[in-house]
């Protein structure tokens, strides 16, 4: 995806990528004390093969949370990360004494992180209009992270593992 149309205004993919990067950085550093490095971006399933975690550890247990958003540009958002990273992030978020959260705790935290990252990204893209997020849900056994061929995907190195976010606008908004 190179651009999308919002009320007749064309938004460049780079603007979406930048908003996703800023949102991921802000949320992970504030809530989980994890610093992130943006490692890559792309669109479509072919680009996802470049994600190190997906390429190197096909058998790694992945945790993916999805939510939908409504507003002047409705769409879908997904956050995906390996269970090991989710457990570390979960322990930091919940201030646990243990170094890793349980699977259930990690799932709850990943859903909340998805909610916050999506909200923080949309806050940068929506330019003042009200949006609404659905309740985030975990998706088991997800085959393709990108909800749509027109979606934007970014992945990040946290030092503890790779994390991927995908944001796809409804087709009528993709140009």
């Amino acid at each position, binding site marked *: 995806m190179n651009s999308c149309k919002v009320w007749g205004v064309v938004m460049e993919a780079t603007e979406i990528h930048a908003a996703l990067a800023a949102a991921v950085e*802000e*949320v992970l550093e*504030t*809530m989980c004390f994890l610093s992130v490095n943006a490692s890559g971006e792309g669109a479509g399933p072919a680009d996802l093969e470049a994600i190190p975690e997906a390429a190197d550890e096909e058998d790694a247990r992945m945790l993916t949370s999805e939510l939908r958003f409504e507003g002047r540009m409705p769409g879908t958002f997904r956050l995906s990360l390996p269970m090991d990273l989710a457990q570390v992030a*979960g322990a930091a*978020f*919940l*201030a646990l004494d243990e170094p890793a959260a349980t699977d259930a*705790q990690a799932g*709850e*935290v990943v*859903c*909340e992180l998805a*909610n*916050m990252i*999506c*909200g*923080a990204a949309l*806050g940068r893209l*929506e330019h*003042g*209009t*009200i*949006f*609404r*997020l*659905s*309740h985030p849900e975990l998706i088991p056994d997800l085959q393709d992270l990108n909800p749509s061929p027109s979606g934007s995907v970014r992945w990040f190195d946290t030092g503890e593992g790779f994390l991927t976010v995908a944001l796809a606008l409804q087709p009528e908004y993709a140009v």
Partner: protein
Amino acid sequence: MELHVLIVDDSPAMRNFIRRVLDLSGLEVGLCLEASNGEEALRVLEDHWVDAVLTDINMPEMDGEELLRQMSAHPVLRSIPVLVVSTDRTEARIQKMLTLGARGYVTKPFAPETLRDELVQSLGGGDGSN
């Protein structure tokens, strides 16, 4: 004086996070009640008096906007300060919630001291710490 609060959020992880922030805030927190949506919050408020409500906006069953609307229309509950804690940082949303009666607004993600300061402000500006 102990501060009794009600945390309203559909995310157990976020309720847990806010509870921890309050525990470490230096405020003397007494009852720390929880609800996962506006409807549940109103039921809790039927049985318990609290000094402040901290609420998310996007929740199933009844969202934070409707909770605020119902509290503002209630002869007793309208006096309870409400602090909104939401991912939505758009100016239109913030203004809408403040117009409906919210005393403060914190956007997620937030630093612990931001939540504490906004809560103290919502309570009338007094420090309230030990």
